[in-house]
């Protein structure tokens, strides 16, 4: 890019910011803002395995040029930057996602929009941020907490309420304090609807409070199923939370969260062996949060889940113990706990142990090739076919982390890989010749360089041979089979793991 282009791009970018029109955003703006594919970048080479590993787990895989960036600042510094996402300039990504109006509205105003609109905006936003945000660790944690505090947008009016929950619960606290996030979730209209908290009121004679949310709070959000609570604790927590509700569809100021004193069971309760005095009213919630969030089982459970996500399906107990200790020592600082996980020896030793779930697979493929996408339905369809469309998991446990349930998705992964490299996904395109040039790949045979780009390492002999034999067997035109060969790399087992 010469100086004139630079200035042109700059003014185009400010125009974009001013209008916020999604259609106007394009390569020019992204270029200037640094989110495009660099003119020159280096692919993985010997000695960079650690950095690739870091980007595979703490980010959704490397974007062209990311490796050089990590190598330049060093892994520790990169992690430190990522732990403070607000310090990272993310203008290019913000421009790409600027057109989604519903993301900024309070819950009650969401209802001005039709359901497909609010669903589509949130889903596309999520995918675009995962692909383009430079705050990659933050986006990875957003995905983690979205699973942890799962809400299905198919249930009741969660479609309208999940977007505020995404903003005010998940994104507001993804790297913050755990207790703050649990509190935000407990009082999130979407959660009050999804787990029936709004139905939970003081029981009359012969009735019981609605314990659905209380149960999941203990089982899935804090202590974990083996965390040492009893059915009695579930009932007591439910009693503590009686009276919290949100206004219904046919009321004014719909979705407004409020505490109804008359519906609160204000008697004495005992939660996990700790007495909650009568008369606490809405403060009962604070007491419950204090008790469950500071419980040692919660530290263990969150540590184990983070380690399962970042290290392996059966994470080493030593890593879990370290993370749990940090969690406990810092009173539930997510930032500190994640730092412990990413800098521990067990993390470094876990290369290739995770199977990418479909979301990570798709996002990492788009990133590896520096794809230009508007996250259209054509792209999202692949996630649906692989069973991981964002916000579509019906049960409160969130999409599973383990490899097993995702092993049946291989055909769809291959289909996606081939469609991507041949530019057959609407609204999504890749420019392979440009990439080849930027990597300084030999024009006659760019495949070895692409292998290193896609796999993030020196390819194995079998990988080189498989690609070479495909290229010699395929009767297609050279540019076509070169594209398909890149699809083959994305479809290969090496790219399914991270």
């Amino acid at each position: 890019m010469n100086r004139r282009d630079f200035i042109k791009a700059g003014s185009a970018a400010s125009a974009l910011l001013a209008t916020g029109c999604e259609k106007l955003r394009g390569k020019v703006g992204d270029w200037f803002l640094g989110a495009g594919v660099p003119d020159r970048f280096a692919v993985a080479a010997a000695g960079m395995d650690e950095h690739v590993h870091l980007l595979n787990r703490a980010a959704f895989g490397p974007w062209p040029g990311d490796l050089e960036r990590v190598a330049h600042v060093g892994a520790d510094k990169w992690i430190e930057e990522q732990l403070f996402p607000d310090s990272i300039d993310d203008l290019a990504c913000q421009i790409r996602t600027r057109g989604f109006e519903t993301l900024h509205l309070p819950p009650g105003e969401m209802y001005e929009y039709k359901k497909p609109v609010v669903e589509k905006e949130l889903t596309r936003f999520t995918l675009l941020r995962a692909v383009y945000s430079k705050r990659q660790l933050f986006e990875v944690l957003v995905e983690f907490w979205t699973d942890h505090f799962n809400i299905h947008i198919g249930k009741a009016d969660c479609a309208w309420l999940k977007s505020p929950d995404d903003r005010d619960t998940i994104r507001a606290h993804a790297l913050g304090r755990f207790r703050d996030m649990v509190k935000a979730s407990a009082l999130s209209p979407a959660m009050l609807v999804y787990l029936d908290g709004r139905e939970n009121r003081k029981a009359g004679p012969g009735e019981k409070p609605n314990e659905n949310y209380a149960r999941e709070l203990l089982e899935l959000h804090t202590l974990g199923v083996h965390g040492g609570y009893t059915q009695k604790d579930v009932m007591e927590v439910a009693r503590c939370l009686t009276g919290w509700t949100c206004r219904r569809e046919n009321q004014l100021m719909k979705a407004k969260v409020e505490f109804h004193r008359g519906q609160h069971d204000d008697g004495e309760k005992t939660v996990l062996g700790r007495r909650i005095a009568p008369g606490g009213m809405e403060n009962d919630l604070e007491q419950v949060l204090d008790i469950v969030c500071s419980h040692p089982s919660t530290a263990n459970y969150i540590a184990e889940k983070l380690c399962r996500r970042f290290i392996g399906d059966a994470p080493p107990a030593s890593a879990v113990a370290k993370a749990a200790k940090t969690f406990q020592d810092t009173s539930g600082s997510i930032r500190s706990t994640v730092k412990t996980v990413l800098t521990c020896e067990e993390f470094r030793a876990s290369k290739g142990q995770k199977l990418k779930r479909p979301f990570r697979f798709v996002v990492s493929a788009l990133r590896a090739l520096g794809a230009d996408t508007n996250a259209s339905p054509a792209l999202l369809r692949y996630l649906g076919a692989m069973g991981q469309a964002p916000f579509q998991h019906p049960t409160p446990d969130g999409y599973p982390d383990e490899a097993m349930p995702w092993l049946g998705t291989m055909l769809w992964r291959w289909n996606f890989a081939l469609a991507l490299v041949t530019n057959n996904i609407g609204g999504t395109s890749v420019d392979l010749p440009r990439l080849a040039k930027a990597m300084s790949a030999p024009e006659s045979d760019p495949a070895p360089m692409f292998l290193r780009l896609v796999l993030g390492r020196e390819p194995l002999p079998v990988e080189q041979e498989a690609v070479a034999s495909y290229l010699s067997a395929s009767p297609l035109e050279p540019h076509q089979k070169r594209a398909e060969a890149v699809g083959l790399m994305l479809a290969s087992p090496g790219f399914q793991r991270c």
Partner: protein
Amino acid sequence: MLLTRRNLLRVVFDVNAVRPQKDTLVCVFLRGGADGLSMVVPFEEKAYYRLRPSLGIARPDQTSGTKGINLDGKFALNPKLAPLKELWDEKTLAIVHAAGSDDQTRSHFEAQDLMERATALETGVSGGWLARHFQAQPAGDRTPLMAVGLGPSLPESLRGAPVAMALESFDEFHLGRNATSQAALAAALDRLYGTADADLARSGRQSLSVLDTLEKMRQQAYTPAAGATYPDSDFGRSLLSVARLIKAGVGLEAATVDLGGWDSHFGQALLIDRLQEDLAGGLAAFRKDLGPALDRTTVVVMTEFGRRAYENTAYGTDHGRAGVMFVLGGAVKGGRVVADWPGLEEGQLEGPGDLKVTTDYRDVLAEILAKRSGQTQLEKVFPGHEVKFRGLFA
């Protein structure tokens, strides 16, 4: 190294050879809440005509108008379901009336979800009922095309299945732009996955064999047998795909097919006439096309709930409770309406005026699994439900 095809064939063939014969179970879900009282009409109920002054389907012995087709002197088929009469007569079709779930929300989402999970959200049991059925089977019995969801994504009933695939048409799985290139890609993938870890190697091998199977099926032009003509609709095309898979002997054990749009709050007749034609035309063509293969096939048709017994002022009906289910198959004791008929008179209805559920839909599904689907563990598939068989099979 090229041509894994022969090897793949061997894999598919061997696996088929050792598996015990099981039915293919085809689950048709009528999404939106189909009006059982219009589809299978209790014409002996005086209350029916009182509650449905304009939407009621006339008695079969009426001389004029849209009248039902007499089944057993008590129930009549909607005339738009006429193609099902032949299946009724040959006794491959049984009708289960006043069937449904214990869902009280009357919400489409909640009720569909409950039905497909076959357990309440709070129980901590995850995944769908079909998925749990497959989980209960020995891992060695798994084959790549054992469970297929016809449509853009898997239905909840298959969520968590060890092997299950969403499939919209045979044409959507193409690796390359032409056959030679596709074979070269398949050979390369075979080689790559052959050296992968065990999990990925198995998954890769299965996927390649599916590709191979679908490719072969694509190459053979398919003409439905016996002059069967499927409706020109997504539903018709889905059933045709299922018939092809069954006849190709690919090891299909469960297929799910959706037919949506039954939410008939207003102008009901216009809306559901077309859907009923689609449903009945599709099932009749499917039956004809399968021929003797119907002996190894069971089709079950369900919906999340039936509709209110009385019509509303917009010539429609609102969300109700019990609906109707159909069970079709070579082994079915058909030609019968299976029902503990609860009645439509005041005092017999439930809530705001709904047909009571007297047959739990899980009893129907459980009987199919237990009698026609090989090994299963009903206590895991339908946790907490005490199963009662209804004698659907001989």
